[in-house]
Structures are given as structure tokens and as C-alpha cells.
């Protein structure tokens, strides 16, 4: 597990000195670098996961990374490579099935359970204990090496670039596949393209947050953003911003506490989600959109005919 520091300077309430204390460690710098990149890409991809209602498929896809990584370690290949190969393959298959993946929760769940069992087998064959599996399942952000950071940045950059290229047709096809198809938008191709981008994002995020906790970065910020704004661009920016915030604050708290960073990142995301759901006025926000006031100024007041 993470190197938990018994001897660190205490929390000082001075953000600058705290930040410089935290970032004086190479492993913390790597954790912040990888975490920031992963949070950014998770927010962007997460908006589309929520919009397309493919949260369960996305979760299953990230779980496929587990046997991929564990199997690769078993045969002496870099786990990240194994994870990428597995998730990209599964993502392509899911993308080709497209619409049919939705509503097939039972099948997805069965494959998911088997892949987790397979991953557990591989990792116990490899190390003889479950430490390795534990890191993959729950993340080990403070164990991120500079090589890991490079891989994470590369995978995230490709995923971000792909989503940027697909942005408009993907938005169209996600909201209204029937009209998009009639207008010659390549719906199936976009479905595959999105699942591949998701596979890259998931593989990048696993090192930070782990296979099982990936939802905290992928879905929770997007679900919070959805309630704070109703503009797609603003929702994406909001989701990415929140994900970055959760990672930064989560890592900082974990630096001063003997508990795993993953917990604080997920916990912050969860608490924020609950607050946004139940806070008085949250309903009105979601109706108006917290950031909706920007565009209401141009809103026409002419009554409908």
C-alpha cells in the first residue's frame, strides 16, 4: 500500500507552505500529476457516460482492466499494457453491440463477476497473496512512478483528443440516435469510438483510484455537474473541475492522515453529490441551472403562439 508517512510536518493552515511541503516529495508530485490528468479526462468522458446512460457498461469495462493487468503481470508484461489491451478490446465489442448493451445488465453483470474472479486468480498466482490485486482494485496513487505518469498522460491525451474530435456528432447521437442516424451521423462508429476513449480513460484512472472506485471520478462529478448546469459545455467543464478538486483535496488530506487517498477522493465526491441532491435550493438549481443565469439574459419573453 501507499507509503504512509509517520514523520511529516503537521498541517499548518497556510496553503502555500502546506502545498510546498506536500510537493517536496517526488511521489506526491507524481501523484498530483497523474491525478490531475486523470480527473480532467474523467470529467469529460464522464459527462457522456451519464448522458448515454452507460454507467454500468462503463463500470464493467473498468473491471475488465483487472484481469488484464493481473494477467499481464503474470506473464511478465507491464500491467498497464495488459489493462489497455483488455479494456480496448472489451470496449470495442461493447461499442459494436451499441444499443444492445443497454438493457443487457444481466449479461454485463455476469461477465463482470467472472472477470473480477479471473483477475483475482491471476494476481494470486502471480504474487501468492492479494496485495497486487488490492492495489488494482482500490488504487495506489502514491505508488505512481514517473513512467506511470507518462503512460497516464499519453492515454488521457488520446482519449481527450478523440472526444474533442467526436464532440458534436457524439452529443447528437447520445441524445437522439434515430435522427442522428437519418442525418448520416455514423452512430455505430461513434459508439465504438466512445467506448475506446472510455477504455483509455479507465486504464489511465485505475492507477489513481483503482478498478472498483473509478466511478467516483467518472460518474459522480458528471452527475453533480448535471444538477448544477444545463449547458453541455458548462457541465463538462464543471465535471472536470470537480474531479480535479476531489483529487487535489483528497491527496492533501491523505498526506496528513494514515488512510488511503482513494477513500478521501471517493468520500469527497460522495458527500458533494449528497449535498447537491438534498440541499435546500438544489431543486431550483437543477431547474434553472446554477450557471444558467448566463444564458437567461438572452432568453426571449415572447409567449408561445
Amino acid at each position, binding site marked *: 500500500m501507499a507509503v504512509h508517512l509517520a514523520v511529516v510536518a503537521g498541517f499548518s493552515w497556510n496553503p502555500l507552505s502546506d502545498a510546498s511541503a506536500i510537493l517536496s516529495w517526488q511521489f506526491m508530485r507524481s501523484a498530483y500529476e497523474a491525478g490531475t490528468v486523470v480527473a480532467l479526462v474523467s470529467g469529460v468522458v464522464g459527462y457522456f457516460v451519464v448522458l448515454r446512460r452507460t454507467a454500468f457498461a462503463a463500470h464493467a469495462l473498468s473491471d475488465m482492466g483487472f484481469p488484464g493487468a493481473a494477467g499481464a503481470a503474470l506473464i511478465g508484461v507491464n500491467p498497464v499494457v495488459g489493462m489497455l489491451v483488455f479494456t480496448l478490446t472489451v470496449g470495442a465489442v461493447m461499442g459494436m453491440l451499441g444499443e444492445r448493451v443497454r438493457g443487457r445488465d444481466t449479461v454485463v453483470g455476469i461477465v463482470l463477476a467472472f472477470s473480477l474472479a479471473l483477475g483475482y486468480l491471476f494476481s494470486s498466482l502471480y504474487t501468492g497473496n492479494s496485495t497486487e490485486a488490492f492495489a488494482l482494485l482500490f488504487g495506489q496513487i502514491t505508488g505512481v512512478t514517473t513512467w506511470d505518469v507518462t503512460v497516464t498522460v499519453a492515454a488521457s491525451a488520446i482519449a481527450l483528443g478523440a472526444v*474533442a474530435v467526436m*464532440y*458534436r*456528432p457524439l452529443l447528437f447521437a447520445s441524445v*437522439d440516435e434515430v435522427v442522428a442516424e437519418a442525418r448520416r451521423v455514423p452512430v455505430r462508429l461513434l459508439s465504438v469510438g466512445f467506448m475506446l476513449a472510455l477504455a483509455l480513460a479507465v486504464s489511465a484512472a485505475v492507477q489513481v483510484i483503482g478498478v472498483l472506485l473509478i466511478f467516483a471520478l467518472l460518474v459522480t462529478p458528471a452527475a453533480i455537474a448535471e444538477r448544477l448546469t*444545463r*449547458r*453541455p459545455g458548462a457541465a463538462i467543464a464543471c465535471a472536470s473541475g470537480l474531479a480535479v478538486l476531489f483529487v487535489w483535496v483528497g491527496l492533501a488530506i491523505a498526506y496528513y492522515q494514515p488512510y488511503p487517498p482513494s477513500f478521501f477522493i471517493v468520500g469527497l465526491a460522495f458527500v458533494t453529490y449528497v449535498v447537491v441532491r438534498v440541499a435546500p435550493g438544489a431543486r431550483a438549481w437543477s*431547474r434553472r441551472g446554477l450557471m444558467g443565469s448566463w444564458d437567461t439574459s438572452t432568453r426571449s419573453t415572447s409567449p408561445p*403562439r
Partner: protein
Amino acid sequence: MSGPVTDVPAVSPGPEAAGSSLTVVRAVGLAAGYGPTPVWAGATFDVRPGEFVAVLGPNGAGKSTLLRVILGLVPVRAGMIEVLGDSPRRGNAGIGYVPQSRVLDTDAAIRGVDLVGFGLDGGHWGVPVPGRARRAARELVTAAIESVGASAYARRRLGELSGGERQRLLLAQALVGAPRLLLLDEPLASLDIRNQGLIAQLVASIARARSLAVLLVGHDVNPLLPVVDRVLYLARGRVEIGPPEKVVTSATLSRLYGSEVDVVFDRRGRRFVVGLEDEVTHPHPLNGPAVKRPADHPAP
């Protein structure tokens, strides 16, 4: 993928807008269907610019199939069809299409204006770049929303809109690319009677103002009768087209549906069809092979 952004909807079409002929859709002996057996056959009709045609018939008669043939999504089995002077092809920018109402996401951070904007640049790759072209596109979207009277709620979330409001925005989406042919599949389904009349009148006035040909698929002929130019009936594999006073008669409808259908007149001479109420909810079994609906068009 969509029409050029500069293509502002014209009030009256120029001579070139009408193409080589004066017909928007021309079908001769047309038959179509998903399998080897056509759903219907022998369809011969023309649709001219500015003409509002209601496409009617029982469930499973192949009304949506006709629209999907025109869209180039269903192959022609026999005969010929010309759409805007060409054979049907997918992604024809001259066609605005509103499919049968589907479940659109309820909570998503996406607004009516975004939906309308898809009609303009939804197929374009990349992220929209701010600039002149973007502003011009915004103006077109605003104009399309105003033309259907949806300005008051276009900036709400899709999930907060009523069925009638969403239908108007989908109509704006179909109109924003300045099409010459509008295909509307059951736009009146799941609307209350008042909204059915309002949407039918709105479509009629837009069709006339823009010389836009409209094919509107409907279940109930009554809200459409006051506003349509012609009706096209699909029933039991046959196709019948003509002005309401010729086709919407007790004799023709009884023959088409194979059951007693009455056409009655009120004191102001308006036509009403009675005897098809069951048809709307309980379709008759068809003569001939059972019609299989495409997977993406489940029965309502």
C-alpha cells in the same frame, strides 16, 4: 452532413429550388419493406412544394416505412421513387425529419436549443469554435425556434419540457437546415386534443409560408382534416392518395380498412371520421403476411 449554414429559409422558392421538376417526391408503382415481402405495393403519387400530405392507416400498415424509404433507410422492392429529383439517400440535407417520439433523457444537462442546433451542425466533427460562423448558426437556431413559437422554453432542460413543447423543438430542429421536404412521424401522438390541433395548424402554416412539402404520419385523421391538402392511405398492402373530399369517404375508408367506417359532416360542413376509434388502439390483423416492425420502432 447538414445544409450550408448560409442557406436562410426562403419565403418562396426560386425556380432552381424546385429542382428539375415541380415534384418533391415522385413514386411510381413503388413497393417497399424490410424482408423479401413488401409491406405495401403499387404506390404511385407525387408530392409538390408547399403541399401538406397526411399519411394515414392502421398500425403496422407501413406508414413509417414510407418515410424511411424516402430517407434512404429502407430499400425499394419494386417501382421507382425520386426524392428532390434524385434517388433516396441517407443524410439528404434537403429533408427535415422528426421520427416517432422516443424517450429522450430526462435529467441530462442538455437544453432545447442544443437539440435544435443538432439540426444545423450535429453531424460536424469537432468542438464548435466561437466566431462569425458560430454566431450565424446561433441566429438560425433562434429564428427556427421563433418560427415554431418555442422561444419561451427553448433554454430549459429537455427533461422539463412537455410533450407538445418537445414536439415543437424537434420541429424547429428539422426546419433549421432549411429543408424542402419535411417528414413527420406521428408528431401528434401522445398530445392532448388542443395541442394536436395547434401543431397541425403550425405545420400547415410553415409549409405554406416556405413552400415546404410535408408528409405527416398520423393515426387520427380528424385533427388533420382541416389543414391537409391531400391524404395518403396505407392499408392492407394498398395505397390510396387524393384530396380529403375524394378519399375520406365512407366507401373508400370502409374498403381500405375492411370494416364499417362512417364519414359524417357537422353543421359547418366539416368532415369527421367515426368507426376507427378501435383502430387506433386495437389494430386489425392484416391480410397477407404479418408485418414486422423494425427493431428501432417498437409499437407504442
